């Protein structure tokens, strides 16, 4: 649950965890800050992506196998009723007014929610459809503001807009034609039906794939954490080593403003130099800078390849005060750091104040990946993707490996 609904519930005084709530032994293997505990809500609906929690506590999860709704009837934290519904095999999922908005690779849809009914009974309505079917970066994650404005991440079907994608030495197309239809955020009226991409307007550009996208009601602004580029070393081996590729290019956290340009594919933010550099496809020599002031600096430059897949500004009341309005970010974990050790696979907390980073990020939940045999993402035990806040202020996390859903609550020190 996001923003407004959480506030309504906390006014009603439901800000503390229900008595009798189960705690997973050893927090299910997750490392959490002192005072926090984890419950396994459910596992078994297949690969989960994003999720949301209604004011009554019902949990809705989007997954590659379809949509599911979960209810905890005895308030022990675990789902007792699980219903599958709909025909969307997808990614993003958000509750908005009395609707459940979901997406797949080519569209955003919604289901009407009836009071006290767990799974929607009716068929879906199409909000926007007919995005081109692409293979890379095709998940249409989205955010909604309080008025129902719909911000859709349209990822670029490319690594770095090379003339030949992911081919050694191939230079970048300039201007990058992909940016006409991809690589940014497109805005729609989320209350209107049967729209196509032609009904949208490009809101922001230069974003390779902003999977983690969120409306911040307090700041009245959009924010996103963007997946940075891959393969510096294999594409430009005379400039970059495997270690460079594993560590330099940031996953950039930005406030996304109307008309903003965040620098892809022409640049990337180099975490080692702590500044933006020209991409090697566009004349970059490892140090050359783009025109001063052309692209904004990130609010936070997260480590390379961590794969930020969800962003959530904490609007609950049950976590300690420092978490209020700060950002939780779910990092799905790397594949393109190999042969270096993979990294990410955790949920971090970024303290925020007035829409800016307020101190260094902290690892909030870790231990998802397990031993990860052979350094392979395939062997990760869990990979966090989706985040949501429940009516009691608990943080819910969804996993893409087994579809496990956790509820993280604060019990005090």
């Amino acid at each position, binding site marked *: 649950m996001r923003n407004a609904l959480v506030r309504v519930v906390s006014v009603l005084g439901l800000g503390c965890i229900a008595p009798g709530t189960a705690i997973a032994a050893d927090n299910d293997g997750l490392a959490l800050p002192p005072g926090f505990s984890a419950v396994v809500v459910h596992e078994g609906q297949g690969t989960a992506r994003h999720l949301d929690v209604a004011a009554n506590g019902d949990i809705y999860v989007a997954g590659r196998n379809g949509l599911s709704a979960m209810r905890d009837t005895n308030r022990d934290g675990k789902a007792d009723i699980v219903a599958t519904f709909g025909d969307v095999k997808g990614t993003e999922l958000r509750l908005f007014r009395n609707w459940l908005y979901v997406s797949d690779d080519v569209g955003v849809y919604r289901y009407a929610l009836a009071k006290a009914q767990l799974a929607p009974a009716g068929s879906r309505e199409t909000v926007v459809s007919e995005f081109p079917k692409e293979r890379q970066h*095709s998940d249409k994650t989205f955010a909604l503001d309080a008025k129902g404005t719909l911000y859709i991440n349209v990822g670029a079907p490319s690594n770095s807009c090379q003339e030949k*994608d992911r081919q050694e030495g191939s230079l970048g197309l300039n201007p990058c034609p992909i940016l006409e239809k991809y690589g940014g955020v497109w805005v729609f009226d989320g209350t209107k039906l049967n729209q196509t991409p032609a009904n949208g307007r490009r809101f922001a550009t230069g974003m390779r794939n902003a999977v983690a996208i969120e409306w911040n009601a307090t700041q009245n602004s959009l924010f996103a954490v963007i997946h940075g580029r891959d393969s510096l070393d294999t594409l430009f081996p005379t400039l970059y080593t495997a270690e460079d*590729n594993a560590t330099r290019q940031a996953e950039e956290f930005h406030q996304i403003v109307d008309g903003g340009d965040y620098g892809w594919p022409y640049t990337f933010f180099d975490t080692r130099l702590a500044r933006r550099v020209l991409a090697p496809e566009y004349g970059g020599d490892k140090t050359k800078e783009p025109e001063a002031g052309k692209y904004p600096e990130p609010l936070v430059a997260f480590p390379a390849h961590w794969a930020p897949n969800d962003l959530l500004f904490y609007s609950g009341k049950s976590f300690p005060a420092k978490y209020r309005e700060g950002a939780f970010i779910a990092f799905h974990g790397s594949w393109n750091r190999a*042969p270096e050790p993979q990294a990410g696979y955790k949920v971090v907390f970024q303290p925020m104040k007035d829409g800016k980073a307020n101190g260094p990020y902290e690892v909030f939940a870790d231990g998802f990946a397990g031993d990860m045999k052979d*350094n392979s993402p*395939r062997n990760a035990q869990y990979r966090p993707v989706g985040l949501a806040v429940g009516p009691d202020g608990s943080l819910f996390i969804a996993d893409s490996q087994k579809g496990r859903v956790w509820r993280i609550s604060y019990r005090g020190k």
Partner: protein
Amino acid sequence: MSARSLRLAAVFAGLWLAAASSVANEPAPGQLLYNKHCLACHQADGGGVPNMQPAIAGGTWVKGDARALALFVMSGGFDSASRKDSDVGNVMPPFHQLPDADLAAILTFIRQKFGDGGSPVSAADVADARTSLPASPK
């Protein structure tokens, strides 16, 4: 043979032995080349990354005809017929720019490690396959 020559011969023999034993402890050239060109996508265990890059371990390509494998790796996955039904997101770039000997070493390594100990591939095999590439694959 003079004493000096004998000493020199002993030194060279020692160097050769040292070099041979150090080679024995190092990964095969094909593995080093796999690590450089292939591992980031297909991973150390050849298992790929779900939804991103396919597994090659145990697959039909590494177990099958060496010439077809050489052609596939040199051409890349862009126009592969099997790709149409694939659920992986990323495309495989062509590797025709690598020398025959490097490609042969890589193909030998992946056939042995991921293809149930398949037969080695020689540079001549790769050169022969290269003649079947389109005239200008670049």
